[in-house]
């Protein structure tokens, strides 16, 4: 049963599997995109709850972020996947035919919301309170002050954290394969089981290269954003 390395490792499998995997990035990005959308919305609501200091709403938001921070993604994923249909069944609703991808998007939206809640809260708190008062004093309405004065400044502060949360989401998203999602990771495990587990290493290396490139691109993109958006900030400081 002793295997030798050279007999079982062949780099041709790396280059061969990359083109087979790439089309499935579509699914990966779709899950990530939807989770970002819903997660940001929920995260924003939670952040408002924390900032407004309403007693019950703040308690709930604090509890939510703590619980989510302490839950491994894979546990959250299965909790949602098994839990939501079980709860629905109690109300006589049958969710057996719902696409798996829905549960995956729900799970990762919940996770991303917790991250975004803290990102938004920190960014909001970093903007000097005087900015809001100054905006009001020159005749802007509350909404105008938030949109034209507070938001752009908070956004610059939030950018690096948004980037990190997005990268974390993409990486954690790989776990969707455990409940049968055929994204880039799911396709890799299908190829491997199709080969009866032979050359799994090469295919996982190919997969890691794909994820690595995506991460580097996103990281660089966010660095660019940061430069572009913080330009205005510096000129204000100088004058």
């Amino acid at each position, binding site marked *: *049963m*002793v*295997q*030798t*390395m*050279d007999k*079982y*490792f062949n780099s041709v499998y790396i280059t061969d599997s990359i083109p087979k995997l790439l089309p499935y990035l579509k699914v990966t990005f779709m899950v990530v995109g939807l989770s970002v959308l819903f997660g940001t919305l929920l995260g924003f609501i939670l952040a408002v709850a924390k900032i407004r200091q309403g007693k019950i709403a703040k308690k709930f938001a604090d509890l939510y972020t*703590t*619980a989510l*921070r*302490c*839950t*491994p*993604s*894979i*546990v*959250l994923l*299965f*909790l949602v996947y*098994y*839990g939501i249909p*079980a709860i629905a069944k*109690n109300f006589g609703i049958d969710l057996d035919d719902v696409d798996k991808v829905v549960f995956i998007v729900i799970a990762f939206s919940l996770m991303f919301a917790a991250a975004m809640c803290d990102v938004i809260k920190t960014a909001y708190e970093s903007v000097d309170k005087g900015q809001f008062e100054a905006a009001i004093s020159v005749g802007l309405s509350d909404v105008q002050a938030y949109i034209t004065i507070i938001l752009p400044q908070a956004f610059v502060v939030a950018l690096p954290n948004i980037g990190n949360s997005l*990268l974390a989401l993409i*990486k*954690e*998203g*790989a*776990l969707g394969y455990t409940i049968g999602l055929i994204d880039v*990771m799911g396709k890799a495990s299908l190829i491997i089981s199709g080969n009866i587990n032979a050359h*799994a*290493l090469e295919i*996982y*290396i190919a*997969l*890691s290269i794909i*994820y*690595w490139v*995506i*991460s*580097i691109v996103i*990281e660089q993109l966010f660095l660019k954003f940061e430069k572009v958006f913080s330009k205005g900030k510096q000129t204000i400081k100088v004058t």
Partner: protein
Amino acid sequence: MLNYKFLVDTFFVALSGAPTAILITFVSLLIAIPLGFLLALVRINEVKFLNRFAQVYVSFVRGTPMIVQIFIIYNSVPLLLATIFTKLNIKINIYDVNPIWYAFIVFSLNTIAILAEVFRSALGTVNKGQLEAAQSVGLTNVQAYTKIIIPQALVVALPNICTATTNLIKGTSLCYAMSLKEITLRAKVAANVGYNYVEAYIDIFLVYLIICIIVEYGFKLYENRLRTYKGVSA
């Protein structure tokens, strides 16, 4: 409806996996703290060649999913070991090796990269004059680091070390991929009998929640103690 008896029983099944998760976390930190610190020094002092290696290493670990890293190690290290064992005529069957050893390797390698970044940014916050001042009063480099630089950097690094630790604990949930019986896999196996997955995952969720809250609380206490030493910034 929930099966409450199963819920309670399985909580203790999941809890029985906690020592494994904590052991992996502990061993990984023990290995990763010194090596991560060395890597941070390599990056700061821009040691030739090693700096480039450290950059690529950190970028790879941070840029790829944990589960993929686990599969890469789990599919390569046994093959490597098997090759070495046959060459050296060591009669150890590679399939008898406890998967916890692979977990130690994966999570140490991962945490080294994470902590290298944490230490690097923390050391960056300490004023350069501190090192020069320490040297000017006759301390050696090692003394300057252990007595002056590290205590200051530690205060800054602690919240990030806490995050790295909780992420590590959460990451051990992926050990199912190596058939390692920790918290998640134990409860899941218990659930397989009667399809009580909802109950099992509630238990798993609770166990991680309890462990992480204790760890976060512990770090908070330690941070407060360090801050009182620092005095001024408190």
